[in-house]
């Protein structure tokens, strides 16, 4: 009986529901049986192997490199690198540039995400109702997101150049020549970089928030209106709490992305002046691809990974409450 079922259906379903393959003299099932691989395992094996190759193996390599001083220019293969225990982590602990770059990146994430979220909420409230030209306006608003990041950064480089339009506009406004080197002033050089990031990625935040807002259940809002609640109160007490899961996800995604900010920094300042705009990606780029310090940067990457994971866990806690 079992043999017949297996032949007919290339496998039989037992009463318990588990999928089993019976021994077959010929064909694919027969091959699996000969190799001793159950059919259910065979189904997930390709995906598992792919994950192994693209995630687990590189992670293991990074873990190994982090405890070596490997530089590809040493004329040694990475597996031959000298094991140096935790010296890279020790050096990173005392590396003021690395620590400053980390703090600076967290600051950039905080400011950019705060501004992007505020703007996205304001725009979403404006666009939640139907009005003429709404579709066209949405298309225009999301345009920056479609610009190649390097081009966007280049546009901001031109805008904030010593002789660029920003200085020219200020000159016109105040009525006397205004020359300020935005990109070489340690206090202000970060501003064009953050403005570029905000300009380009607020649309994404806006789209996510708008989608969430349009999907909110209307009954509670209608009830609040009927009871005479003010729009501000409705927003604070009903819309915002209901929107929190969407905001949480939007903030999480954008925080992870902003933590990796590179293009505007590279194009506008390359981390100058005096490292005043050096973010963690810029720091790691220099270490890995200018000085080829792969071991050291692997250790830095692990620290950054732990940090980003911690932030993600912290940000996802409120989400768990909602779900």
């Amino acid at each position, binding site marked *: 009986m079992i043999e017949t079922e297996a032949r007919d259906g290339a496998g039989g379903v037992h009463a318990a529901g588990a999928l089993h393959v019976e021994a077959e003299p010929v064909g694919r099932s027969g091959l699996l049986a000969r190799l001793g691989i159950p059919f259910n395992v065979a189904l997930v094996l390709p995906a598992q192997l792919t994950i192994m190759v693209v995630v687990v193996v590189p992670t293991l390599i990074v873990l190994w490199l982090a405890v070596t*001083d490997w530089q590809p220019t040493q004329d040694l293969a990475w597996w031959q690198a000298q094991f140096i225990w935790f010296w890279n982590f020790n050096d990173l602990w005392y590396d003021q540039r690395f620590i400053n770059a980390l703090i600076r990146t967290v600051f950039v994430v905080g400011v950019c995400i705060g501004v992007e979220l505020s703007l996205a909420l304001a725009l979403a409230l404006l666009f939640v109702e139907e009005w003429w030209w709404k579709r066209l306006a949405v298309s225009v608003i999301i345009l920056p997101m479609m610009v190649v990041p390097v081009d966007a950064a280049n546009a901001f480089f031109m805008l904030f150049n010593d002789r660029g339009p920003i200085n020219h506009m200020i000159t016109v406004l105040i009525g006397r020549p205004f020359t300020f080197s935005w*990109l070489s002033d340690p206090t202000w050089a970060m501003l064009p970089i953050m403005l570029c990031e905000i300009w380009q990625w607020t649309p994404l935040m806006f789209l996510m928030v708008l989608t969430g807002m349009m999907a909110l259940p209307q009954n509670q809002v209608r009830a609040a209106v009927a009871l005479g609640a003010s729009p501000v109160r409705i927003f604070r007490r009903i819309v915002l709490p209901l929107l929190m899961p969407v905001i949480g996800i939007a903030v999480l995604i954008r925080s992870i992305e902003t933590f990796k900010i590179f293009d505007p920094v590279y194009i506008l300042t390359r981390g100058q002046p005096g490292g005043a705009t050096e973010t963690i990606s810029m720091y790691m780029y220099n270490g890995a691809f200018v000085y080829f310090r792969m071991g050291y940067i692997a250790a830095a990457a692990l620290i950054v990974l732990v940090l980003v994971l911690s932030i993600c866990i912290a940000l996802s806690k409120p989400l768990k409450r909602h779900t």
Partner: protein
Amino acid sequence: MKRLFNGIGPSRRDVLKAGATGLAGFAMSPLLGRGAHAEQWALKNIHETAAAKAKELAGSRNVSLKIMQPSGSLGNVKPVGDLWTKATGIPVHYLEVPLGEINQKVLLEAVSKSGSFDLALPATFGIPDLAESGILVNLDKYAQKYEPTDYQKDVLYTIGDYYKGSLYGYQTDGDTYLMFYNKDWLDNADEQKGFSDKHGYALKVPDTWEQLDAMMEWFHRPDKGMYGGALFRTQYFIAWEWWGRFHAKGFYPLADDLTPQINNDAGIAALEELIAASKFLYPGARTNGLFENFEAFGKGDKFADIGWGGTQKFLNSDKSKIKGRLAFGDMPGGMVNGELLRTPYFNWGWNYVVSSVSPDPEIAYLFSLFACSPVMSTIAVRDPGGYFDPIRGIHYKDPQIQKTYTEEFLVAHKHSMINSIPDFYLKGQGEYFDELRVNIAAADAGTKTAKAALDDCAASWERITRRMGKRSQSVQWHFLKANYPAGIRDRLK
């Protein structure tokens, strides 16, 4: 073949005379005894013999050479490459990469070993890293075989060609750091009187950094469109000026045991003086790069500038409003134990090197011998659009080169070349200097004090040295120290 080069070669007498003047810059002990098997290869026609030998080596094979070179140097390299092809039948292909990235690209070849070039022209300061990476051919064996004994006697700066005593390349560009001054302002009688009344010494080409700073302050009148200077304050360039100011106070950057000395009192004072001088620079000093700097000083509204032979090529062109109205000098010095100490500084330059992945390293070496020969290097330096500067004594006598640079400039350039201190040719030079640049720029921008910046830099240097291997770095540092010009070496601590 001789016919190809007729009329452009120096006479034997010229070569020997120039060689004698260049002897002062020839302090390379590893060179002694080299070329013993190549004595029959005379310096005068080395380009011909090198080409003939390359042709013989190539035989009937389909050989070609690929050169990776910094952007903008095609005008210097191609005329020589064309003559090589005519003489040997070996075509040359040129691969231009951004000027600031060439060392990185050559290092990448050490990883990929793709054979994308046979020869390269990296910046001289990167030779130690490239040599350690294994991508450069140690040229000792070829030099032993082919290089005439007097090949480098006429070359005014050869320290950068060597790493730990072995030859890795041939210098092809005399990039010593020089000062440029507005001669009209220096010669103005009213200015001279006013300045000497205030400071008690004459307004002339300054001997010391202190005098230069005082003169820049004197001429800095932004309300009248006059600026003290166009010295660099962008991060990439700023450390070189500090390096000059620091050495002029009588110190090496490292002690014998490789402890950084950069954060001693002299280093801090040098940085504080540099920061103070920033007040007397034109507004674009913190943002402008190399070519913007040429243009800025070329306007004629600034007193002092710092640069290389390439700067003079621009300033002496029709694009410059200050053409013919310039005075020149070595980098200023300092008073050490009551005596003036000048420390001219060779801080850039390009070297012909041979890739270890090249299928024909011997032919590639012969090309570099050909390109850096007296005759061919003269052709390369002549190009007014390129940026290779005189490197051999013979170049200073060439009428076309004299026209391009002016005789007055060449006198200052030659003096500076002969007495130049070497750059920091250690493994990890890029990392050492990156730390120095970032910290000096931070101090100049006001985000750190001079002391904090140099202390941070010294701490980073200690870590870099430990990582690079103290024993290995010590070997090269002592080699380097021994090759500082004698008159300077004796006075540095």
